[in-house]
């Protein structure tokens, strides 16, 4: 086992264990913090996969925005959170079953790939700087991914507007907010 493999195993274990804690932890704030750990571990995996840019973006977006938002929501809805009743629903055994079946099925499917045991990735064609540049260009290149990119931007805009609309207080209270 090389150093890299060791790093991977440690990270992967961290990811899986914290992921289990995410779904198992009775206190939601802890679950959210475990989620942060998982996401951080995934960021490390991205670095191992030579995608440093993605790793940073992962930290910025997931930990910096999504996880914070989730924690925020958890805290805002704390009154029901405080009673730590059963966190799993009645059909949790079905969920476990589906999860296990899905895992097995996925592995069975993936194991059929000819590259399943490919141990070493092919060398990268270009330097990291060039890769980021190429990534940026590919997102605005008409022949490549400009359409998904634009769709994603429209989606973000829609999400922005949608969350503002949802978060607005009901109409009768808006009048009370004074002229600021």
């Amino acid at each position, binding site marked *: 086992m090389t150093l890299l493999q060791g790093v991977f195993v440690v990270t992967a274990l961290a990811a899986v264990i914290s992921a289990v804690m995410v779904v198992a932890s009775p206190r939601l704030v802890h679950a959210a913090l475990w989620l942060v750990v998982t996401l951080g571990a995934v960021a490390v995996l991205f670095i191992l*996969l030579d995608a440093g840019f993605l790793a940073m973006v992962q930290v910025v977006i997931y930990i910096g925005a999504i996880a914070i938002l989730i924690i925020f929501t958890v805290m805002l809805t704390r009154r029901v959170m405080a009673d730590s009743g059963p966190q*799993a629903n009645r*059909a949790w055994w079905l969920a476990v079953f589906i999860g296990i079946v899905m895992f097995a099925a996925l592995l069975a499917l993936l194991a059929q790939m000819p590259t399943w045991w490919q141990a070493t990735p092919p060398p990268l064609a270009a330097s990291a700087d060039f890769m980021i540049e190429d*990534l940026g260009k590919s997102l605005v290149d008409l022949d490549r991914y400009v359409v998904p*990119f634009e769709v994603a931007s429209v989606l973000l805009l829609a*999400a922005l507007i949608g969350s503002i609309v949802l978060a607005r207080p009901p109409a009768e209270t808006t009048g009370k907010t004074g002229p600021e």
Partner: protein
Amino acid sequence: MIPLSWYLILAAALFCIGLYGVLGRRNAVAILMGIELMLNAVNINLVAFWRYLTPALIAGQAFAIIVFAVAASEAAVGLALIISIYRQRSTVIAEEIDLMKW
């Protein structure tokens, strides 16, 4: 070096744990966290396949970025929905939010 399969197994595990979270948890926020786990698993797959199979094409990374965008919008709208449901009905338990039946 690390075989591709390790990444795939890890991603599948994360995906299924997330799936359990989505299906088995009662709290809507916890369900959202499960979805985030699943999306992360997808991203690991995308990047791993890119690195091992087609490093010359940037598609894997490009689509991982788009998955980020989707995840961000999903979190924003989903959490806004949860808060607004919480305001209306004082609950975030998914089983109790069943107005849309019959």
